[in-house]
C-alpha cells in the first residue's frame, strides 16, 4: 500500500528533470510496475492498516495550511471572490478543528476491499492514460520542462488518489481531497490561456465547496461523536443525527459534478485530453461513488431513498442535457456525470448486491471512459476533429479509432460488457428494494429511462462515425505506438472483464461476444467480391447528402429549474439527516 502511494510521488519528482527518452522509459516501466502491484494487492485479501506517527501528523497539518494559503493567494491574485472567500472559510474552520480536535490515536491508513478495487482502477486505467499522455504532450507547443511537469503532475495525481482511497482519517482525507483539487486546478489551467484560467478558477471554487462540506462534517463528527476516523464514525453514528455523513455525501456530489456543480467538470474540457481522460475515469470524479460506497452502510432508510432519488434525477437530467451538445469531449463529460450519479444511486441502496453493482459500474465505466477519451484525443491531434458535426467518412481512413469508439460506447450499454452487467444487476437490486420501500421506483425509473437516453446519445454519435463513402475500401490506420498501447491496454482489460464478472452464464456471455468480435473478421474475409457494387439507390434522388444528427435541447428555463430542484433536494438531505424529517 505504501508503495502504491509513494512510488508515483517519487516518480513525479524524477520526471521533470529527465530527457525525453529516459523519461518515457522510466514512466512506462514504472507504470507497468504499479499496475502489477495493484493487481497483486487486489488478489491479496489481507486487511492492511497503518498508524502514522505524531510528527507526520504535524507535517500534514502544516501542509494543509500551506495549501489553503496557496488557494487564498490564488484567489487574491486572480481577483476571484469565491475562491478566496471559500479558502478563507476553510482556513478558519480548519484552524478551529485543529484547536478543537482531541489528540486521537487510531488507524490512519486502511486498505479494505473497496480500496483494493480502487487501486486497480487508479493504477491500471490511470497508467494506460499516462503512457498515452507521453505521446500526446509531445504534440503540444511547450517547453521541455513544462511538458515533463505535465507528466509529473499526472503521476502525482495517481499517488494522491492511491492515498485518498486508503485513508481512514477524515482530517487526512480532507488534505488529500484538497490535493486532488489542487491537481485538477493546475492541470485545467495548464494551457494558460484566458479560458483555461477562468475554468480552472471555477473548478477551484466549486471543489472548495466540497472542502467546506468535509470540514463541517469534521466539526459535527468531533462535536457529536468525538471521532475523526471513518471506521469509528460509521460504527457509532446514530440515525437521528446523520449530519456528518451527509456533509461528506455533499462533498461527494461536488467531486462527482452532480447538479448543480456540473460546470466545473464541463469546464475542465479546455485542458489537454489526457487530463480529461484521467479526471473522468481513474481519478477525481471516482471519489464521489467511493465516498458513497464507504458511507452507505450508515445511511438511514430515508436518507438512502433521498440519495438514490436525487442521484437518479441527476442521471436522467445529465443524459438529456447531453443530447444537444456538439463538442465530443463535452458529451463524454455529461455522460460521466450521468453515470457517476447512477453509481451513487446504486451505492446508496441498502443491499449488498446494489453495492456490488455500483462497484462493477465504477470499474468498467473507468475503462470505457478512458478508452473513449483517448480516442477523443486521437481525433483531436491526428485528425483535427473536435466537434461531432465536423466528422464525416471517418471510418474510411480511421477504422481502428472508430472501432474503439464504438466499443467504448457499446461497452457502457450493451451485453456482454461489464458496465452492462452492472446495470443489469442494478435493475434486479432496485426491484428488490422496491418491495421494501415503494419510493425506490423513482430510482428504477431513472435508471431505465436515463439508460435509454444514453443509448440514444451514444448511437447518435456513432451515426456520424460510421457513414461511409461508397466504392472506397477501408484503409489501414497508422498511429503512433504509444497511442495504440494505451488504447490496447484498456481494450484488453474490457475484454478480460467480460469473463471475470460471472453474473451471466456461458451461453449468455458467448452469444454477444461472438457477435461483436466476429464482425470485424467477417468484414475482413467476406468482402462480397461477387456482388456488384452500386451507389446508394436513395429513391433515385440526386444531389449531395450531408449527414446530420438530431438534437434535443432543453430550454435554459428547464435547466435552471433542474438546478433549483437539485439544490432543494440537497437541502432536504440535511433536513432528513438532522432528524427534522423522519
Amino acid at each position, binding site marked *: 500500500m505504501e508503495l502504491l502511494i509513494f512510488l508515483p510521488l517519487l516518480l513525479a519528482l524524477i520526471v521533470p528533470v529527465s530527457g525525453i527518452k529516459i523519461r518515457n522509459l522510466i514512466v512506462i516501466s514504472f507504470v507497468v510496475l504499479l499496475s502489477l502491484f495493484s493487481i497483486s494487492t487486489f488478489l491479496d485479501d489481507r486487511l492492511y492498516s497503518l498508524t502514522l506517527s505524531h510528527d507526520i501528523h504535524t507535517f500534514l497539518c502544516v501542509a494543509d495550511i500551506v495549501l489553503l494559503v496557496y488557494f487564498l493567494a490564488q484567489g487574491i491574485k486572480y481577483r476571484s471572490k469565491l475562491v478566496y472567500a471559500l479558502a478563507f472559510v476553510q482556513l478558519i474552520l480548519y484552524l478551529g478543528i485543529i484547536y478543537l480536535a482531541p489528540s486521537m490515536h487510531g488507524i490512519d491508513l486502511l486498505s479494505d476491499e473497496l480500496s483494493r478495487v480502487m487501486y486497480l482502477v487508479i493504477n491500471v486505467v490511470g497508467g494506460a492514460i499516462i503512457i498515452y499522455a507521453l505521446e500526446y504532450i509531445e504534440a503540444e507547443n511547450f517547453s521541455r520542462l513544462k511538458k515533463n511537469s505535465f507528466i509529473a503532475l499526472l503521476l502525482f495525481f495517481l499517488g494522491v488518489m492511491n492515498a485518498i482511497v486508503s485513508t481512514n482519517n477524515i482530517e487526512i482525507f480532507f488534505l488529500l481531497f484538497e490535493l486532488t483539487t489542487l491537481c485538477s486546478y493546475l492541470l485545467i489551467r495548464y494551457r494558460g490561456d484566458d479560458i483555461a484560467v477562468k475554468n480552472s478558477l471555477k473548478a477551484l471554487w466549486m471543489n472548495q465547496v466540497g472542502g467546506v462540506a468535509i470540514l463541517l462534517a469534521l466539526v459535527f463528527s468531533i462535536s457529536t461523536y468525538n471521532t475523526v476516523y471513518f471506521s469509528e464514525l460509521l460504527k457509532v453514528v446514530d440515525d437521528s443525527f446523520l449530519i456528518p455523513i451527509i456533509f461528506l455525501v455533499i462533498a461527494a456530489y461536488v467531486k462527482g459534478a452532480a447538479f448543480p456543480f456540473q460546470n466545473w467538470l464541463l469546464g475542465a474540457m479546455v485542458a489537454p485530453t489526457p487530463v480529461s481522460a484521467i479526471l473522468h475515469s481513474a481519478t477525481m470524479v471516482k471519489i464521489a461513488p467511493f465516498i458513497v460506497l464507504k458511507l452507505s452502510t450508515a445511511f438511514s432508510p430515508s436518507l438512502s431513498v433521498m440519495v438514490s432519488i436525487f442521484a437518479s434525477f441527476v442521471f436522467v437530467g445529465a443524459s438529456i442535457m447531453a443530447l444537444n451538445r456538439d463538442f465530443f469531449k463535452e458529451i463524454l463529460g455529461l455522460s460521466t456525470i450521468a453515470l457517476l450519479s447512477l453509481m451513487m444511486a446504486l451505492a446508496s441502496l441498502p443491499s449488498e448486491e446494489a453495492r456490488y453493482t455500483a462497484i462493477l459500474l465504477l470499474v468498467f465505466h473507468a475503462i470505457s471512459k478512458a478508452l473513449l477519451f483517448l480516442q477523443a484525443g486521437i481525433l483531436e491531434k491526428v485528425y483535427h476533429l473536435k466537434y461531432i458535426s465536423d466528422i464525416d467518412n471517418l471510418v474510411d481512413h480511421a477504422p481502428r479509432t472508430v472501432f474503439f469508439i464504438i466499443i467504448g460506447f457499446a461497452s457502457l450499454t450493451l451485453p456482454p460488457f461489464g458496465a452492462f452487467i452492472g446495470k443489469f444487476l442494478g435493475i434486479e437490486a432496485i426491484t428488490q428494494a422496491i418491495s421494501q420501500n415503494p419510493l425506490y421506483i423513482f430510482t428504477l425509473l431513472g435508471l431505465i429511462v436515463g439508460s435509454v437516453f444514453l443509448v440514444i446519445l451514444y448511437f447518435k454519435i456513432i451515426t456520424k462515425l460510421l457513414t461511409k463513402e461508397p466504392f472506397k475500401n477501408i484503409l489501414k490506420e497508422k498511429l503512433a505506438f504509444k497511442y495504440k498501447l494505451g488504447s490496447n491496454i484498456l481494450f484488453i482489460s474490457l475484454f478480460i472483464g467480460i469473463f471475470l464478472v460471472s453474473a451471466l452464464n456461458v451461453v449468455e456471455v458467448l452469444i454477444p461476444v461472438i457477435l461483436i468480435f466476429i464482425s470485424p473478421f467477417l468484414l475482413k474475409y467476406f468482402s462480397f467480391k461477387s456482388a456488384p*457494387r452500386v451507389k446508394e439507390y436513395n429513391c433515385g434522388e440526386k444531389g449531395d447528402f450531408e449527414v446530420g444528427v438530431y438534437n434535443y435541447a432543453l430550454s435554459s428555463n428547464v435547466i435552471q429549474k433542474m438546478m433549483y430542484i437539485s439544490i432543494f433536494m440537497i437541502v432536504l438531505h440535511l433536513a432528513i439527516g438532522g432528524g427534522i424529517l423522519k
Partner: protein
Amino acid sequence: MIEYILIVLAPVFGGVLYGFERVVRARMQNRQGPPVLQPFYDMYKLIDKNSSIVHPMHIVLAILHFITLWAVVALMILGYNFLYVIFLHLLATIFIILAGFSVRSVYSHVGSNRELLAMLAYEPIFILIATGFYMINGSYDISLIRQEDTQILSMILLFAAFLLTVPLKLKKSPFDACEAHQEIVGGVEIEYSGIYFEFLYMAKWIEYVFVYMILLLFAGNNILLGVFLAIAVFLIVNLVDNSTSRVNIVQTIKIIMGIGLTLSCLNILGLSYV
C-alpha cells in the same frame, strides 16, 4: 429436443404468421389478399434478383441483426433470463440501426433515426414488464415464468402498456413511423437488394415471433389463455392497423411513453404493496 426443432423453425412460424396477417388484413378491407405462403414465394423470387451491395459493412450488419434476433428467440424458447433477452434484443436493434447509418442515403438515415427514437418508447416498458415478472415470480427466468400460474390480472396495467408497444414493434399503424412505406420507403430497408434483403425480411418475421412470445409469457402455464390472448391481440392489432392513420415519431414517443410508462409504474407500485 423439441426446443431445438422449434428454434430452427422459428423463422418459418414467423413467415406463416406474416402471410396469415396479410390475408386477415385484406379480408378486413374486403379484398381477396395474397395466399398465406406469399412471404415464402417472395423469398424464392428474391434469390433470383440481382444482388448489388453498397459496401460490405452494410451487409454484415444486416446479417448480424438477423442472427442476433434469432438468438433472442432461441434463448426465449430455451427459457433463459427475460431481462437479458430484452437487452440482447436491444443489441439486435442496434445492429440494424448502425447498418442504416452506414450508407449515405437520406431514407436509410431517417429510418434509423426513427428506430433509435422508437427505442426510447418501448425499451423502458419492456424492462418494467420484466421487473413486474420478477416481483411476482422472484426470478427473471422464462422457464420459471412459464411454469407458474398466470398473473395477468395483477399485471393488467403492464399488459396494457405492452399492447401499446405491439404496433410499434411490428411496424403497424398508428405507430409505423419507423418504416412508413409511403413516406420514407421502408427506412433502413431501402438500400438492400436481392438475397441480402432476405435477411432483413426474415428478421422481420422473427420479430413477430419475439413479440408474440412475450405475449405468451403473460399467460403463464395456462395454454388456453395463451392461445386466446394471441388470437385476440392479433385481431385487435390488425383492426387498429386498418382503422387508424399514422402518427409521427414524436407523437408516438409521447403517447407510448406518457401512457405506457405511467401504467407500468402504477402496476409496479401496486405489486410492491402486495
